[in-house]
């Protein structure tokens, strides 16, 4: 298995280098064989296409080049040039007035943007070269170039995907990719409450933050990280499977022959999906408080003598969270299961019944395998979703109770994600938050990859059909 994967990788790598090699070769050939229009296009984008009448493509390419230089000269360079130090001019006072120095944050952010711009610039240059080559070859072969109108119209037919994806891809690039790259880089800086822009500078510190994460002595947060990670995994496991099986059970109960008002039961359950969580969970949080409704009534009725510490005892808080999560999560699974259970052919059950199987046996040998098979990928996404289930934890406990045994203000019910949030918002400890964020990514990615390859529906696509 490992060897196979290795081979694959090697193949992929060699393919990649081959492609790059071919790319360079093509550029060389284009230049050597190209006419003066092509050669000039190496410097002035789109000149060749414009001269050959491909105005639309040519102008688009030229516009990209102009925009790039305009961006770099007018805006980008001042940031990119300081990228290696993240700024050196400190903020100072001139009399009572404040004169801000370099803003490390913006230098890092726009520096990253500039690097992306440069990569895009090179890519466009390559497209530009290829376009020239294509046109020349077409002309040499004596064929006509497509008209400008054809080029434009192809955006609604052959190249319709470019039209459809242009906006989403740009949006994702600016508001997802750029910020993620930025934050990954923050993990290698000392950007925290003592180095806060614009008043203070921050700078590169290499792997110090990662060393802090795995440091188990003194002020290191290694032990805390491990405990939070462990609880994150335990929580995700419980949250996913309690909801899955209980949801399935409820769905089967409602589906049962002879149960009436099916729609009513479902509607009642589904309320927890419909009501916004910040309303329902905050109310439930207050309900279970030490001095809340539940404890109040239990004491009043004499069932307990002193209050049950639902949120203040670490173990009980964890259990309560999982239980409340069932309240939130069962309906979702119930809806899904209801639809899927109908798909199981009735004659399977019929023949099992003739063979004398009891309901439990039927569940174990027909219903469960079918459900697990069909919903495998769903279970996986639920699991990774629960790893990052911010709302339930934060609205119920905010990660509390804290403990003297945990560093960096982590609480006993904190998931990695809520811990990360608290670091960002309460402590402005961005450097460690970035490190934790990378760890969340690693955990999610590893689990997804491993489990995905183990899923029966992936291994054996045709299996159940």
């Amino acid at each position, binding site marked *: 298995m490992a060897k196979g994967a290795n081979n694959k990788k090697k193949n992929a790598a060699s393919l990649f280098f081959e492609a790059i090699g071919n790319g360079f070769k093509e550029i060389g050939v284009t230049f050597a064989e190209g006419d003066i229009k092509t050669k000039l296009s190496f410097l002035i984008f789109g000149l060749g296409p414009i001269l050959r009448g491909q105005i639309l493509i040519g102008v688009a390419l030229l516009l990209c080049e102009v925009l790039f230089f305009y961006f770099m000269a007018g805006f980008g360079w001042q940031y990119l040039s300081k990228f290696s130090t993240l700024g050196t001019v400190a903020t100072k006072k001139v009399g009572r007035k404040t004169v801000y120095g370099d803003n490390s944050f913006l230098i890092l952010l726009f520096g990253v943007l500039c690097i992306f711009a440069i990569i895009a610039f090179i890519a466009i240059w390559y497209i530009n070269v290829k376009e020239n080559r294509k046109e020349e070859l077409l002309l040499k072969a004596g064929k006509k170039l497509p008209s400008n109108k054809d080029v434009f*119209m192809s955006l*609604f037919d*052959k190249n*319709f*995907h470019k*039209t*459809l*994806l242009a906006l*989403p*891809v740009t949006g*994702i690039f*600016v*508001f*997802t990719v*750029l*910020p*993620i790259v*930025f*934050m990954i880089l923050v993990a290698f800086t000392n950007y925290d409450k003592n180095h806060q822009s614009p008043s203070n500078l921050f700078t590169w510190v290499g792997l110090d933050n990662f060393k802090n994460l795995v440091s188990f002595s003194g002020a290191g947060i290694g032990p805390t990280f491990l405990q939070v990670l462990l609880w994150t995994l335990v929580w995700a496991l419980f949250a996913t499977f309690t909801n899955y099986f209980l949801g399935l059970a409820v769905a089967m*109960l*409602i589906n*049962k022959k*002879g*149960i009436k008002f099916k729609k009513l*039961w479902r*509607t*009642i359950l589904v*309320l927890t999906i*419909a*009501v*916004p*969580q910040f*309303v*329902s969970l*905050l*109310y*439930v949080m*207050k*309900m279970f408080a030490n*001095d809340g*409704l539940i404890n109040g*009534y239990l004491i009043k009725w004499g069932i307990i003598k002193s209050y049950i510490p639902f949120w203040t005892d670490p173990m009980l808080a964890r259990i309560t969270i999982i239980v409340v999560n069932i*309240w939130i999560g069962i309906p979702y699974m119930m809806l*899904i299961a209801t639809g899927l259970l109908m798909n199981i052919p009735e004659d399977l059950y019929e023949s099992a019944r003739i063979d004398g199987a009891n309901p439990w046996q039927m569940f174990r040998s027909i219903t469960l395998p079918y459900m697990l098979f*069909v*919903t495998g*990928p769903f279970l*996986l996404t639920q699991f*990774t979703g629960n790893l990052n289930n*911010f*709302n339930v934890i934060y609205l119920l406990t905010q990660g509390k109770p804290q403990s003297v045994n945990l560093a960096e203000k982590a609480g006993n019910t904190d998931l*990695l*994600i809520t811990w*990360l*949030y608290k670091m*960002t918002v309460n402590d402005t400890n*961005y450097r460690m*938050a970035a490190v934790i*964020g990378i760890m969340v990514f690693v955990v999610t*990615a590893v689990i997804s990859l491993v489990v995905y390859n183990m899923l029966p529906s992936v291994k054996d696509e045709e299996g159940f059909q």
Partner: protein
Amino acid sequence: MKSYKTKRAIGNIIGYIILILISIIWLFPFVGLVLQSFRSYATEYGGMVDYLVPKQFSLDNYKFLFDTSQNNYLLWYKNTIVIAVFVSIFQTIIQLCVSYALSRMRFAGRTFLMRFWLILGMFPGFLTMICLYFLLKQFGLTQAGAIPGLILVTVASCGMGYYVCKGYFDTIPKALDEAAMIDGATRARIFFTMIIPMSKPIIIYTALVAFMAPWCDYVFASYVAFGHDTSYNVAVGMTRWVWTNDYQGYFTRFCAGGVLVAIPVTLLFMFLQKYYVEGVTGGAVKG
């Protein structure tokens, strides 16, 4: 035969008992929420109490919410609706576009794009909050401009959530497209005149999910709008009543506000439940 029948009857009775118990548990918090919202903060007490039924029913809390001289609740409500409507419209459009391109067309970089987005999705969203905040600030879309800012951020990255919609498109036979193309229809024409009219359930599902999410957005909304009361949404405005000590005795008002938020969203959801079930079931199977 008779024993089978009684057995079944007993089974049903047990089933009903369980269902009734579950219903009570499920409804209890909501009943509590509604009851508390009728406890007057002026004459009874607005903070927490350990009894369920108010001693006297009153509409004080609701009157407070509608009194614009005392708080901005109505404004927050309007903001949330604006965000929800715009996000719902644009997110549906974008996800339809992305899904169609990925489901129907084959082009260089398609699998790369899908893999890349899958990996991006594994980074926790909160990680990038500070960065998004300053990006939005460059465009003037924080504080006073927080509402368009929130819409922009949500819509800009929603392309990655194409799975359910693409799964639905995958079930529409490709033969239909091919037949239309032979008749000379362009891709765009097929998309607009054939696929979209066939996708009513999934459009409603996407729009519904997109519409419901902003009602709960506390984290990023509070981060972008801080210090500007008039651009809060209901979640940001109201959680302060529970979490900060500046608002003593606002608990019943929180409950009333919560009820008003829950009613339209719940009704809408119940009304469109059929499509929601279709969407999540399809999504679960496709993964």
